[in-house]
C-alpha cells in the first residue's frame, strides 16, 4: 500500500486530507511542520507529499527545497485552502507536481493522487534540428552513405523488432465468450463458472484458455449470481430464490431457499458467512448457511451500483458498476472502503459488468454488451495496481 505524506499545520486540514487519502486506499503519514515532514520522509518513505496551505503561504516551496537534496523526484501536491489560479501557476513553475483546489473530497483528490503516484520523473526532451550540408558533393556522398546504412540498419531493426515482439507480447486481457447473457461469475479454485440467464445454463471455463470445458443446463432456474460455499454451488435464481446444488455432473439440487432479501445480484462466501448484495435496496447482507439463509446483519452499500461480490481469501470485494471500480470492504465494517481499483475497460460504456471473481492473483470480471444480446459477452482480467500484467 502506497504511503502518502501529508504536511498541514492546521489539525482539521490534516484530518480532512488524511480521511480523503485513506478513503482512496492509501496509507496516510501526517506531519504538522517541516521537521515532522522530514521525519516522515526518512521513516515512512512516502511515494508523494500532499501539502495543505493558504495561497499566500510558502510551505510547499520550503518542502521542495528540503526534498531537492534527499528526494528530488518525489511529487509534491499542494492542496490550497482557496482557489487561486495565478498562485497555482507559481507553484507549478516552482516544481510542484499538481495543485488541487478545495473541497478536498476523495473524488477531487483521487485523479491527482493516481496521476502523481504513477509519475516517474524525467527530463526535458526536444528534437534537434538537422544541420545544413556544406556542399553538393558532400551532400550527395552523405545521402548515398545514409541510404546504404539505412537499408542495412532497417533490416536489422525489423529483425530485432520481430524478435522483441515475440518475446514481449503482452498477455491478453480479455476473451470473447460464446454466449451473450452472463449474469454471475465465480472461481472454485480450479475453474471459472459463469451463469447465462438467457439459456439457463452454467458454463465451466478453463482458467487459462477460458474455453468452455463443461456446460450444465438448469431449466428450472433463471440463474444469476453464483458462489461456492460449504462444498456446494449456490445460485441466486429469479424469481426470489437461492438454490443450492451438489457439485456433481448434473449439479443436483440440494435445496431451494426463498430469498428473503432479494434482489441478490452478487454472492461471496468468506468461509463463515455468505455475503449477498441487494441491488434494489443497495444493501450488503451477512448470512449464515442455515435452512433460511438468515441475515445476521445488513449494511448500506457504500458505492454507487453494486453488481457482484468476491472474496479473495482474506478480504471482501465488490464490483461497483456505477462508478466502474472494484471496492475492498473492511470485513468488520463493510460500509468502510479500504481500497478502490478503477476499471478503465468499462469507461467507454460499451460493456456492463455482471460478475466478479478473484483467481490466479488478479480480479476477473464478466460483462455483457450494453445493448443486451447484440454481441458476445466478454471476460476481462484486471491486474492489481502496481503489479505487472
Amino acid at each position, binding site marked *: 500500500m502506497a504511503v502518502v505524506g501529508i504536511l498541514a499545520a492546521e489539525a482539521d486540514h490534516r484530518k480532512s486530507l488524511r480521511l480523503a487519502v485513506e478513503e482512496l486506499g492509501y496509507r496516510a503519514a501526517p506531519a504538522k511542520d517541516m521537521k515532522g515532514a522530514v521525519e516522515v520522509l526518512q521513516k515512512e518513505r512516502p511515494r508523494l507529499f500532499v501539502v495543505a496551505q493558504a495561497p499566500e503561504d510558502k510551505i510547499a516551496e520550503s518542502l521542495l527545497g528540503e526534498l531537492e537534496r534527499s528526494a528530488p523526484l518525489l511529487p509534491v501536491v499542494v492542496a490550497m485552502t482557496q482557489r487561486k489560479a495565478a498562485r497555482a*501557476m507559481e507553484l*507549478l*513553475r516552482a516544481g510542484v507536481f499538481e495543485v488541487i483546489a478545495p473541497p478536498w473530497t476523495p473524488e477531487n483528490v483521487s*485523479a491527482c493522487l493516481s496521476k502523481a503516484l504513477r509519475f516517474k520523473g524525467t527530463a526535458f526532451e*526536444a*528534437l534537434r534540428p538537422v544541420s545544413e550540408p556544406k556542399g553538393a558533393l558532400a551532400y550527395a556522398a552523405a545521402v548515398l552513405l545514409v541510404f546504404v546504412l539505412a537499408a542495412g540498419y532497417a533490416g536489422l531493426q525489423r529483425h530485432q523488432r520481430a524478435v522483441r515482439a515475440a518475446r514481449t507480447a503482452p498477455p491478453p486481457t480479455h476473451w470473447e465468450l460464446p454466449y451473450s447473457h452472463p449474469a454471475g461469475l465465480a472461481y472454485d479454485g480450479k475453474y471459472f463458472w459463469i451463469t447465462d440467464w438467457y439459456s439457463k445454463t452454467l458454463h465451466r471455463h478453463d482458467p487459462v484458455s477460458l474455453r468452455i470445458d463443461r456446460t450444465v443446463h438448469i431449466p428450472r432456474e433463471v440463474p444469476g449470481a453464483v458462489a461456492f460455499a460449504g462444498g456446494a454451488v449456490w445460485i441466486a435464481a429469479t424469481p426470489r430464490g437461492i438454490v443450492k446444488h451438489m457439485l456433481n455432473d448434473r449439479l443436483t439440487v440440494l435445496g431451494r431457499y426463498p430469498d428473503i432479501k432479494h434482489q441478490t445480484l452478487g454472492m461471496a462466501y468468506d468461509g463463515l458467512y455468505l455475503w449477498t448484495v441487494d441491488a434494489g435496496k443497495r444493501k450488503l447482507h451477512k448470512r449464515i448457511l442455515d435452512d433460511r439463509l438468515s441475515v445476521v446483519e445488513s449494511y448500506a452499500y457504500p458505492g454507487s451500483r453494486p453488481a457482484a461480490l468476491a472474496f479473495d481469501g482474506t478480504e471482501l470485494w465488490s464490483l461497483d458498476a456505477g462508478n466502474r471500480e472494484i471496492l475492498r470492504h473492511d470485513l468488520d465494517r463493510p460500509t468502510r472502503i479500504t481500497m478502490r481499483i478503477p476499471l478503465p475497460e468499462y469507461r467507454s460504456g460499451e460493456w456492463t459488468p455482471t460478475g466478479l471473481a478473484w483467481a490466479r492473483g488478479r480480479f476477473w470480471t464478466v460483462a455483457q454488451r450494453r445493448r443486451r444480446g447484440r454481441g458476445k459477452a466478454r471476460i476481462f482480467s484486471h491486474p492489481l495496481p502496481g503489479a505487472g500484467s
Partner: protein
Amino acid sequence: MKTQGASLLPLLIAFPEAEGRLESWGKILDLGALSARILTQSRLSAREPLLLSFRLRGEDFDSLPAVVERSEIDEDGYTRCEVRFTLEADRLRLGRVLRVLLASR
C-alpha cells in the same frame, strides 16, 4: 516539441464564453506552433473556446485564443485534449520561439 515529466509547462486556462467559470490550470504535454496537447483536471469539451497563458523560454504568452479540437478522459480521470491556436499572429510568435529553443539545444 514534446515536454515531459517534471518539465511539463504549467498552463493557465480561462474560459471566455463561460460567464462565471473560474480560471483553471493544467500542463502542456506537446507544444507546436499551431496546436498543443494539454492535461488538466478541468472538464473541457470539443469546440470549447479557451484563453491559454504560459511561459516559454522566459517569454510570456498571455491569453492566447484557442479552441479544443479533441478531448478525452485518461485512465486517472484527467482531461487530455488537443487545442488549436486560432490567431495567426500567435502561431508565428510561437513558431519563432520554438525554433530558437530547438536551435539552442
